């Protein structure tokens, strides 16, 4: 069930009515849990089995940890093995099975079963991290296990978040689930701008820009300038798409009385890679920082025999590599993750960590321009069909081929400018006007009009039109 479907709107409306009618907190949680299971199992009911079983396991292991402290480490290992095992199996099986089948056939062993594709259960990458943070925090003693199974299951399968996050920590969500909730108009007033903005970003900006980016990426040998504008396009598309999902998710959560985490804070205004990751997919960055980067750094610092450059470089490299692997099964994701690891290390060597505070507008602009260019190149790595293709873009393809190429570049640039203007306008409005100003009201009314125009009107430039 997609957030942008009418089915979801009806579903969400019905759940809201029942949820606020039952009033009692425990029943509200049951309503949300059932809604989460219906939402999650809508297309593939068997996904529920995986979700349900893994939820029961982590709930039991966390309780076991608190009651049998001496076995806590064993329980943690079981949870890590099961959760990461399931994630790796579903996410990377398809990546490795073809190669494995080829190897087996080289040795005369044929196994057609290996060639069967396995679908990745939606949201697995997200809810696995939520469960892991719960288990690890229980192990560390920074969190008490939840006695009420419904509350824990709801934390894992909270339907506004289950497919694409935000990956909220248990410390943020569980206390909200444990207290009574009464309807307040504040819930609606904080929800609607997020929902309107989310739908606008997804349906008007992201979906339109996607068709252009896909077109260029599907070319066998596009010119470098064409790839450059496509990379700029993808930079806009991925921000609009992903932040749209987060906005809608946060808006819906707010309608149910929950305050969930912000995931994007103008990431493209960053001046360093560390700052970028503090502003981009913030909940994932926080997870990686708290459960991989810091523990690894602490461990390496304790080993005094290691050279200092290694202690400084290994944590960001490994953390970003894990981030790349988490994002998808493919060499492009892995290289993209590693690329950010290297960038962080290079900036560290240059003496720049966290935010880069510079005096003078020109210096700030140049620092921003450098980082923005690096981000755009990063997105090119992320979106590229293969690393070999990126290599060709860098070393083989011409800068420009024909005049027609130039015209297409102009068209794409004009579309990018047109479709990024609303985001820029919002940025300026938020910076220079109070949140409830008339200007904001006009802005939201105008984007709603565009939303009505773009909703379900099909992409007029559908790439495979000629097929």
């Amino acid at each position: 069930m997609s957030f942008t479907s009418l089915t979801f709107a009806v579903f969400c409306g019905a759940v809201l009515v029942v949820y606020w009618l039952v009033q009692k907190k425990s029943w509200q949680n049951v309503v949300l849990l059932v809604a989460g299971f219906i939402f999650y199992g809508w297309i593939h009911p068997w996904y529920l089995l995986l979700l349900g079983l893994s939820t029961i396991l982590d709930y039991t292991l966390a309780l076991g940890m608190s009651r049998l402290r001496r076995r806590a480490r064993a329980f943690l290992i079981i949870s890590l093995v099961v959760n990461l095992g399931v994630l790796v199996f579903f996410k990377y099986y398809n990546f490795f099975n073809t190669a494995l089948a080829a190897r087996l056939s080289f040795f005369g062993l044929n196994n057609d079963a290996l060639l069967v594709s396995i679908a990745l259960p939606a949201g697995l990458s997200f809810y696995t991290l939520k469960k892991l943070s719960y288990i690890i925090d229980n192990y560390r003693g920074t969190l008490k296990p939840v006695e009420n199974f419904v509350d824990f299951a709801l934390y894992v399968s909270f339907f506004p978040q289950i497919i694409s996050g935000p990956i909220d920590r248990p410390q943020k969500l569980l206390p909200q689930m444990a207290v009574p909730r009464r309807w307040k108009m504040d819930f609606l007033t904080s929800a609607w701008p997020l929902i309107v903005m989310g739908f606008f970003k997804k349906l008007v900006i992201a979906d339109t820009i996607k068709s252009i980016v896909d077109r260029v990426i599907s070319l066998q040998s596009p010119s470098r300038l064409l790839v450059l504008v496509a990379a700029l396009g993808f930079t806009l598309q991925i921000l609009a798409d992903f932040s749209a999902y987060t906005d809608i998710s946060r808006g819906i959560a707010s309608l149910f009385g929950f305050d969930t985490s912000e995931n994007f804070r103008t990431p493209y205004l960053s001046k360093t890679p560390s700052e970028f990751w503090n502003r981009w997919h913030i909940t994932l960055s926080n997870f990686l920082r708290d459960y991989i980067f810091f523990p690894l750094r602490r461990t390496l610092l304790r080993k005094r025999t290691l050279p200092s450059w290694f202690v400084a470089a290994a944590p960001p490299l490994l953390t970003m590599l894990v981030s790349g692997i988490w994002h998808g099964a493919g060499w492009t994701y892995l290289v993209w993750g590693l690329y950010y690891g290297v960038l962080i290390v290079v900036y560290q060597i240059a003496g720049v960590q966290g935010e880069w505070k510079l005096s003078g507008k020109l210096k700030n602009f140049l620092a921003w321009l450098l980082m923005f260019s690096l981000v755009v190149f990063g997105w090119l790595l992320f979106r590229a069909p293969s690393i070999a293709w990126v290599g060709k873009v860098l070393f083989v393809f011409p800068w420009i081929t024909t005049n027609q190429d130039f015209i297409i570049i102009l068209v794409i640039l004009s579309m990018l400018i047109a479709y990024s203007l609303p985001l820029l306008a919002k940025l300026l409005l938020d910076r220079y006007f109070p949140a409830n100003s008339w200007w904001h009201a006009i802005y939201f009314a105008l984007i709603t009009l565009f939303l009505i125009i773009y909703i379900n009107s099909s992409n007029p430039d559908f790439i495979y039109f000629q097929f």
Partner: protein
Amino acid sequence: MRLLARYSLILALLLLVTSVYIPIRYDTAYPKQVGPKLNNRIKMNYQDDIVREKAGLVMIGDSVLVLSIDANQLTKLTGVQTYSIGIPGSASAVWYLAMKNIIATSPYKPRSVLIVFRDTILTAPGYRVNGKYFTLVDELANTDDKLLIQKAFIQQMSPLEQWADRYLPLFGSRLRIRESVDYYIRYTFSSLVGCDQQCNDNANNAVFQGVNLDSNLLVDAIATAESYLYTPDQLDFSAQLDNSFLPEIVRMAKENNIQLILVRTKHLDSPTESAESAALKGYITSLKTYAKKNGVTVLDFAHDERLTPDLFVDSHHLSPAGTDVFTKMLSEALKPVLIK
């Protein structure tokens, strides 16, 4: 709360203004009939060709037909004058219109009509009717094609969409408004360097022409685009049949004494029987049963081993060598069934 009140007020005002302006701008009275506004001009060159060539067999289909069957070669092999209405990007709505507004109204009626299809496309009336596909539909439709509007458009809308289409001009005219928005965004910038719409479209066609596309990515993209045909709903033949144009195509064929032949083509997503899902197998069995009951011939090449992967240029389209092979295969299969 104040922002919500202000927003609601401005939005209501803007909707009011657009509800007055749009009906005047597009010359459409509201409340309007649900569905798109079709023009009354039908592209008649197909019918002229059928009459001129005295075609005994007319083939209808999309780019798969264009790239799979050589009409001239088929004429020679079968001895029946064959004419091809191959419209890249078309689907069952356009095929229904070709049958209704081209063939059934033709002063010279072919003895046989052959429709080239794959898997569930014959019972997917809403497939490829919006966006630029709409032009293909509009080219063959009359303004009073009520069944077309009902099955290809209204049936695909939720009650809320139907309501908005009828009463809300901004929504009802959204396709035309979006076209205008796209027009200004696309062409204004390039017109500054002296490239008008035609020059712009030529550049688009040249840069993104088929030979420039990466075949592997094209295969993935086709699979994504076609995934609509394999949803549980689309694979339920009995549920989809009455919603589709197929019964009407069959009825028109019977009424005009035309032999109807359905040709199922092969594609590399499920090239063998074992690669085909159980749901699709069930669908095809039901389709064949229905066809048999209605005197329609079905020629199924979906798993034919003579069409080897090297004869394809992508997952669905045949190479020139493949066209040659398939045309011969088809002629062999047609000879015993074709009415001469």
